């Protein structure tokens, strides 16, 4: 499994409590629209991601982050800085 696949898999696990409709998660899944998650829940989910990876993901970044694949890139970018 590549690092990106590993990150994707971890994000999917962290997203599960928010995936109340239990839809199948793919890299192109839109975190807010496809999972019908409101903006506050998206921020709460991102907090879980921050704590898991011990990184900060500033809220400013989220406006450009729609899909799980987008978030994989953000996480790996932040990890590369640590």
């Amino acid at each position, binding site marked *: 499994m590549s690092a990106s696949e590993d990150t994707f898999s971890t994000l999917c696990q962290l997203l599960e409590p928010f995936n109340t409709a239990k839809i199948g998660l793919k890299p192109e899944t839109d975190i807010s629209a496809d999972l019908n998650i409101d903006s506050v829940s998206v921020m709460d989910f991102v907090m879980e991601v921050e704590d898991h990876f011990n990184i*900060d993901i*500033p809220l400013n970044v989220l406006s450009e982050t729609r899909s799980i694949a987008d978030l994989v890139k953000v996480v790996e970018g932040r990890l590369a800085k640590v």
Partner: protein
Amino acid sequence: MTDLFDKHRTISERHERMLSLGANAVGLTNDRILSPTRAIIEGRETVLAGTNNYMGITFDPDCIAAGQEALDLYGTGTTGSRIANGSYAQHRELELELAQFLNRKHCIMFTTGYQANLGMLAGLAGPKDTIYLDADSHSSIYDGCTLSGAKLVRFRHNDASDLDKRLARSEDEGGRLVVVEGIYSMLGDRAPLADFVEVKKKHGFQLLVDEAHSFGVLGPNGRGLADEAGLEDDVDFVVGTFSKSIGAIGGFGAGNHPQFNMLRYASRPYMFTASPSPATVATSLAAIRKLKAEPQRRNRLRVNSTRLFDGFKSLGLALGCDSVSPIVAVNCPDEVSTIAMWNALLKAGVYVNIALPPGTPGKQCLLRCSVSAAHTFEDIDRIVSLFGEVVAQGHYRKAV
């Protein structure tokens, strides 16, 4: 062509669902306001328990007289911003007296409380800075942070150790501003200010406390949470509003920084808004003098708040927090039962706020009461009694 309103479809559908369940809980009309605690709503005299009119000062004869005199002397409006049209002497007078009340060197007033947060946050922080904000912050704080262009880091609600962790792993190069609230508007809980001050001593940052719901309410001098906690010297900036304890409209920021007044030339929400009207300034100033001269209002508010809090506890209701404040929020099981309870309460003659996700912490469905010093004990007991009746009707089961 994409209709710009398409993106609001889910909001529209949700609103329609709410209407189908009864009255318009988020679009209510007060046909006539009778007093700080009474209105005619849908033809019925109703006890108001969701107004944030903490001091019950909106019908104070001295405040009304001051507003009427200002209308006569200075007209209905200022017709422009202070940097374009100049200040009225009353703007300066209010800022000076409020700074003295707050025991701060400088004070700047804004046209609304919402703009006070926009103006302070966007004036203080810029794109090279980082703002750390409590996760449960009011929308005006989120919007002010966004307007600033600063890097925004959210920490867990009231969790100083979480802030500590985030500061420790940060790579901030510019300034750092931490934002907390004196009393949080939905649940009525206070920030653990002493814990945040400890983190401030460890990491070094500037601290802003939004005292919107605690100004006039907390502390031996009514200056808010920092006053209550004895930590005013550790708080760099305070923000507040005139639309709650002051019973008017407007907001303020205050601090001791020698460059504080640069905000008048750097804060766009201050610079590009018409200044507060003369009548608003006059009633606000009169109300600030009342806060100073009549501490019994604060004491009465505390007694009333405790009475409502204890009354709800005796009914077995799940409340938003364990500490007493003028905000007493009842945690309901789901959206449908919350709307049903709200409707039943209104029909029985009491108005409270309804608060639903995503506007609430932790997706809670709340019936939010705000207590006034002007409530009588009979009012408080009636509110408790009517909640009891609604519970007995089976609309409520304790939220877990």
